[in-house]
């Protein structure tokens, strides 16, 4: 057992907010007690009302641990949510946001774990995978890596420009998109939910020793993880992070 640090709450100052898509924003925080996270870990965010009422949520770190002193969280707006609407509509640069972390020691990857690496994300499930890709790039690692990223439509793709730039500048990385509702005119790529034949095409070049990280809505994670195991990947090399209700 690795000794675990006790996690303290701290206030980070919001140093920048980026609108990624109509429903997602990234928040950069300067943390006074920053410690390096492992890509894939998350932070808890806590909001406190004047009367002491509190709400907490968990958000994956989007930043790479090489970015010393800063934490970036990418947050999807949930319509009937409590914390994400506050972060989207109220929080501005210069505000203080209370966080603690990093949390979670299982759904993590760094270059010391090696590859080949298969990342499968659905919607905002790409966020912890982005931390892994940014870390891989910061380390100039050549570990063969593929990201398969499912979105409903092109305007919902988070980090599109950065992903394209990473894939173009790095022969070891390939990024595949699939769209489940609508595509751009002339789109020649995947346009369906991730299925076994798509996974086969993406995984085959990586070989049998792949480490897989799957993050997204429960229905996507269940079907992708089941398909990967059915393809012969050992279950202990398929790591999952799920969000959202069952079956929707």
């Amino acid at each position, binding site marked *: 057992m690795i000794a*675990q640090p006790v*996690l303290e709450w701290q206030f980070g100052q919001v140093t920048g907010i980026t609108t990624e898509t109509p429903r997602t924003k990234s928040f950069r925080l300067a943390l006074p007690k920053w410690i390096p996270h492992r890509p894939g870990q998350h932070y808890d965010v806590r909001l406190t009302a004047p009367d002491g009422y*509190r709400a907490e949520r968990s958000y994956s770190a989007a930043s790479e641990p090489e970015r010393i002193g800063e934490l970036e969280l990418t947050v999807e707006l949930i319509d009937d949510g409590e914390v994400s609407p506050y972060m989207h509509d109220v929080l501005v640069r210069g505000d203080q946001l209370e966080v603690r972390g990093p949390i979670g020691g299982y759904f993590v990857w760094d270059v010391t774990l090696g590859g080949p690496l298969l990342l499968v994300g659905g919607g905002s499930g790409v966020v912890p995978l982005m931390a892994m890709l940014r870390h891989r790039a910061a380390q100039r690692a050549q570990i063969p890596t593929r990201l398969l990223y499912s979105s409903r439509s092109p305007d919902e793709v988070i980090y599109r420009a950065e992903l394209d730039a990473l894939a173009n500048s790095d022969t070891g990385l390939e990024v595949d998109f699939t769209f489940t509702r609508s595509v751009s005119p002339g789109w020649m790529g995947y346009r369906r939910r991730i299925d076994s034949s798509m996974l086969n095409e993406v995984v085959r070049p990586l070989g049998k020793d792949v480490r897989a990280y799957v993050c997204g809505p429960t229905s996507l994670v269940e079907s992708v993880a089941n398909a990967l195991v059915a393809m012969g990947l050992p279950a202990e090399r*398929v790591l999952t992070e799920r969000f959202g209700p*069952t079956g929707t």
Partner: protein
Amino acid sequence: MFSRGFSGRRRSADVEKRLPPGQYLTTDFPVLSAGPTPHIALEQWSFTLEGLVKSPVTWSWDDFLKLPSQTFTVDISCVTKWTKLDTKWHGVSVDRLLEGVEVDPAGRYVMAFSEAGYTTNIPLAELVNGQAFVAYQFDDKPLAPEHGGPARLVVPHLYFWKSAKWIRGLRILERDEPGFWEALGYNMHGDPWKEERYTGD
């Protein structure tokens, strides 16, 4: 210090008093698992009580269904912040299971163990007197694999990672030892009302 411009989304007083600190109400049933969902054939399934017991006992699926069972309606809280009220389960209380063995007086802790290697630790005193059960039905239907079926431990007064999915047995121990999540930074005990989420909380 409070959060500028935050007032919060309050629930009725009846609901608020049932939500542990930092938790929000959900009516869905979210799925949290570290890996793929195992799909377990019932004829392969068994449940074992072992460790500090006079003689270990193992039930097959058919034998397990013959044990006296009951319906439990409980509130459950996940460390990922959701709480679900009035969840309805059917299964066998840990008290009933322990009637099948003679526990060594030195046995004070339990390691629940599951298919696919998942483990979690719980003090024995917190599994008895109606506090915990092994469930094989949820909402009057067989427990779905993604929710831990065919059977999961349910310890409603602790965060839900203690309610081991795909349970295969309980090992009685003399000393407390960390299970899977407990070794990865989560709390050894996990009481939602004390917000024992992580190491040192």
